């Protein structure tokens, strides 16, 4: 399968990428690791006229701890994040989740920024970042703005980013010492989650339980009001809208959400 014709441009700085976007607007698409976009282009579900390769932007490849928490450059690859000692210390949930996306080869290419802006409700990292109260930093022609993850996922593959904006950084409040748990139920090893749960402290993010990643608010409130993990996890499927597929109907997914939430919270109850 071969993508439709496009013109390939390479950016080595954020400014270069923004100027190509400003020039081409809606006709241009950013290419990071390409592990979501290129398959869509090969299936001709996407056919941008201009592809701007931003993977070479070295200034967006870092993990730094500061007073507020951890700052992750958007072009950091899953493989880098999984092995990063700063991330493992201050946001271990994300380091673990990054190591469970796809397979070894995918993790050598895929980036955290690419995963976030693709906004696939079945993806692992968006739910983990949502559970972590992450904030996304975007740059566009008008400068920089910050969007909390809680306001970033509007629907399947839909975010508030403008076509001329680029996510540069993901900011995570420090989680040092907090327990965490990650549970992902798949049919085969490298599949997307049928349902997944990312928990850190008493925050719970749900994967593939609606058109966007979700927080399990009813569970979180029950925990805050003194419920046990078992009691709180029973509420994990409240206010969800899981997709219907032949091998995983909504009731089955609700069941999985309750079971996996209990497991993830049990793990998260143990301080890191």
């Amino acid at each position, binding site marked *: 399968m071969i993508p439709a*014709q496009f013109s390939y441009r390479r950016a080595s700085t954020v400014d270069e990428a923004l100027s190509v976007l400003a020039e081409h607007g809606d006709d241009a698409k950013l290419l990071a690791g390409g592990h979501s976009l*290129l398959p869509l282009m090969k299936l001709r579900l996407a056919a941008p006229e201009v592809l701007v390769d931003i993977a070479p932007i070295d200034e967006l490849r870092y993990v730094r701890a500061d007073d507020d928490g951890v700052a992750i450059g958007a072009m950091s690859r899953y493989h880098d994040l999984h092995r990063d000692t700063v991330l493992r210390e201050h946001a271990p949930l994300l380091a673990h989740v990054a190591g469970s996306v796809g397979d*070894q*080869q995918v993790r050598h290419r895929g980036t955290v920024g690419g995963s976030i802006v693709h906004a696939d409700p079945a993806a692992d990292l968006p739910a983990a970042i949502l559970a972590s109260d992450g904030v996304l930093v975007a740059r566009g022609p008008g400068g920089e703005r910050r969007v909390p993850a809680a306001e970033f996922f509007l629907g399947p593959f839909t975010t508030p980013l403008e076509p001329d904006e680029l996510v540069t950084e993901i900011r995570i409040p420090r989680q040092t010492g907090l327990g965490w748990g990650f549970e992902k139920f798949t049919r085969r090893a490298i599949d997307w989650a049928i349902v997944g749960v990312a928990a850190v402290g008493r925050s719970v993010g749900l994967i593939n339980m609606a058109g966007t990643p979700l927080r399990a608010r009813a569970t979180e409130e029950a925990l805050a009001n003194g419920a046990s993990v078992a009691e709180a996890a029973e509420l994990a499927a409240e206010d969800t809208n899981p997709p219907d597929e032949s091998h995983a109907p909504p009731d089955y997914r609700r069941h999985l959400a309750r079971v996996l939430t209990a497991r993830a919270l049990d793990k998260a109850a143990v301080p890191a």
Partner: protein
Amino acid sequence: MKVAIEVNGQTVAEEVEDRTLLVHYLRETAGLTATNIGCDTTSCGACTVLLDGESVKSCTMLAAQADGHAITTMEGLTADDGELHPLQRAFREQHGLQCGFCTPGMIMASVSLLDHNPKPTRQEVRDGLEGNLCRCTGYHNIVSAVVEASGQEVDR
């Protein structure tokens, strides 16, 4: 666009369409056909090669993205005098293949796996090769081959 890739130590430079996939560049432009196209959807791993020493699926990369980088294919593992790479030898010794279609991808993914984890357990080999499908062997002998290539006793 003009794409120049160091393939197995030699620079291959050609004018290709921007949309050319890396796997097509390797097979058709560089003429190296060990790298197979299996599923063409990032699932099976048959097209795995090394990009700057790390395993990637060459059906899900543009040749343009590898411009200026180094690629190693299965052909590049064998020494000039024909001496096999330890993984190639171990796959033969342990009968880690039947039809052989997945083998180049399995071996390239295993090179990267052993680079990250030089002494893996059998379970770690299975986890590390989760992105490579084999429809013949049931994986058992493949795992044995990787364990042998890592210099460990093969406990079948």
